């Protein structure tokens, strides 16, 4: 029996299919799966939100919030390593609270390195580290062609590059801070129509939480809301009721009063 005849159908083909199916069943029973299939099963698929984008190989650009950027880095780090390039003035306590495992973090301070040096450094990091976060100041030192080359390299190496600077070809998201008053436990503040409301002490005695909404800069993608409190971060997909009512209304009210 030749290969052609087996492939063309008939009893041979059905036996092969049966055997393959039996093997696949045995494999899945034993917990064994093809690595690529596993990626597809666990990976984000083609989710539209920023979390899905940050988990996919390539470059994700997020502006407007360091907290959201750190939360994405923590999510992308998962069980692997994360390299941060630049990152002057980063709050490491916040990074740790948001779930970034600092034991698996490499911090690179490029100092005054030129673009050639930076390109080599980022190339070396993309080879070895699954998630690389490049801050805007460092990204600006590269030429657009360099950034495109690094994007291609990241895709090829299946690495994730996050940045808050300009990056050609990146999926770009923007975070807006939601007015923290309702989140901070100041809900139901009476805003006088005339004059300024007096500043008041936060009722909880501390800042309880902050929240940001993240949406893609182009088009009408999914809106995701990140809430950051003392327990870490939590994501909500879509526009939750509380934020929907509070955020635009609060902003608008402030404008009216101001």
């Amino acid at each position: 029996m030749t290969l052609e005849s087996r492939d063309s159908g008939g009893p041979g083909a059905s036996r092969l299919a049966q055997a393959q199916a039996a093997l696949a069943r045995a494999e899945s029973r034993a917990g064994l799966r093809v690595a690529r299939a596993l990626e597809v099963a666990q990976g984000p698929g083609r989710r539209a939100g920023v979390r899905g984008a940050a988990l996919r190989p390539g470059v994700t650009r997020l502006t407007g919030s360091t907290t959201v950027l750190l939360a994405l880095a923590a999510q992308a780090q998962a069980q692997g390593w994360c390299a941060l390039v630049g990152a002057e003035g980063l709050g490491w306590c916040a990074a740790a609270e948001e779930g970034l495992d600092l034991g698996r973090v490499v911090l690179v301070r490029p100092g005054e390195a030129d673009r050639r040096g930076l390109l080599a450094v980022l190339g070396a990091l993309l080879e070895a580290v699954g998630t690389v976060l490049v801050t805007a100041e460092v990204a600006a030192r590269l030429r657009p062609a360099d950034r495109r080359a690094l994007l291609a390299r990241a895709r090829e190496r299946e690495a994730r590059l996050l940045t808050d600077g300009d990056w050609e070809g990146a999926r770009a998201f923007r975070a807006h801070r939601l007015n923290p008053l309702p989140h901070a436990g100041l809900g139901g503040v009476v805003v006088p129509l005339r004059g300024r409301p007096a500043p008041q002490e936060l009722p909880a005695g501390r800042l309880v939480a902050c929240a940001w909404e993240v949406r893609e800069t182009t088009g009408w993608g999914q809106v995701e809301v990140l809430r950051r409190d003392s327990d870490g971060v939590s994501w909500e997909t879509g526009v939750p009721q509380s934020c929907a009512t509070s955020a635009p209304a609060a902003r608008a009210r402030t404008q009216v009063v101001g």
Partner: protein
Amino acid sequence: MSRVDAPRMLALWVPDWPVVALCGRWGGDAPEAGGALRPAVEAVAVVGGDGVLAASAPARGLGVSTGMRLRLARSLCPGLRVLRARPEVEVRAFEPVMAALGEVVADPVVARPGLALMAARGPARWAGGEQALAAKVVETVTDLTGAEGQAGVADSLLGAVMAARQGVIVPVGQAAEFLAPLPIDRLLAALTTRQARQEARLLIDTFSRLGLRRLGDLAGLPQKDVAARFGPTGALLHALAAAQEWRSPVCARPEADVQVERVLDPPVGRSDQAAFAARSLAEELSETLVRRALAAGRLQVRAQHEDGVSRSRCWRLEGVPAPADITDRVRWQLEGWLSGPGDGPVAPLTLLSLTALELRAAGAEQKGLWSQPGAQDRQRVARAAERVESLLGAGTVLSPLVEQGWDPRGRVRLLAWGEEVPAPQPALRGTRSLSPWLGAVPAPSPSVVPAQAVPARLQDAAGREVEVDAHGQASAEPHVLHVEGGPWQGSGEVAAWAGPWPVDEGWWRPQGAHRRAYMQVLMRDGQALLLVRRGRWWLEGVYD
């Protein structure tokens, strides 16, 4: 004694070993030592939990004895210098003595720090007699280590120990006669563990009450009866007293650290010159390790500066380090020290020493059958980090570490890549290990902490500066915040605030306490900021 095959045993006893060890170069860094002590002429005592453990000869001359309370010892000898007992130092310090003994005899055994035992029959033939062997042993140890000991030879364990104390050689077969007139509590000298001594002490009390006051009295009793009445401990003591016990107790010898050091004259102030010195030291250390077939777990770099300050740091190593590995780590360390992070440049180096710690036989480390989870990733990342460091220069690759502390800036330490992560601070009593300090700035922490705090002004409704008093209370409600620099420059109205959290630390330092107070401010545009009052207001963090 008709036994012909009874081994001859040589004991080397260094009197007052704890004092000698702690006064020597091993104990020199003891804070209470206050410089080198000379136990031969000064009254020195080593004191543990139950009083004096050992005393130098001048102190004993004034009446200080083992087991005495410290208060009594001080009253007898007002100028007594007191050292804290450090058993681990005593053990380690004995290793050079054992190494020196190894030059003369094969395989000496540590009975306890300060007492070494070895077989004497063979070496005595080689040295030309037991007398000559004993003299040679004492001489070699004194020459090589400076420790002065006494040697004695006898047929049995207790006999050899007692002979060493008296510095005599007991002829073959006369150990029992030699021991017979000695007081019965001398049995304790041949027991090494605390538990054995404890049990023996009880038994010796009983023997004394029964009228057995000399070793000969005990040895004269039938062995079977003693064993039947007093059990195995009694039988052991009987065998010791009757000079029939020669099994020497064995105590593990620690592996001596491999240390190389170099005095830098003239002092070196530039890191490249220091790295040059480090290179030759590293080669020396690596060669010593290879010659002794050892692998090191840690590398300690210690530097002495011209102004008397001494710094040391540990680096973790894997396997047998190549000279280049060692040189790199020393160079990174020296660059860090000489550039003086934070407190300005430091004084030039006068001494550099490298110590390989946690030694083990090279090639004997067992790699796991399956590699540790993430080990491959770690190696790959380590290679990338080394590559990046070679591209950008030393000190550009760091690993962040968050510790317990009061505020988001003070809790963070950036360690050089590869530097050993220090053990976490112990948890406060009654708290969970990860709970934040009471009075610390609460979570969530600001996601932006500017590298340099930005000056700011916080004013109340009347335009006066808001102050924080000694009790940590704000003088007025904040209304307006002016930030004077950075991307947050500008003025804004305060919508809400929280705090202040006063922090008062370092009050024990001579330059005075470091007092500050933290305050969270929520601006009307929704921006949340963390301010610190330290002489004036500073912008310390942004909840961005």
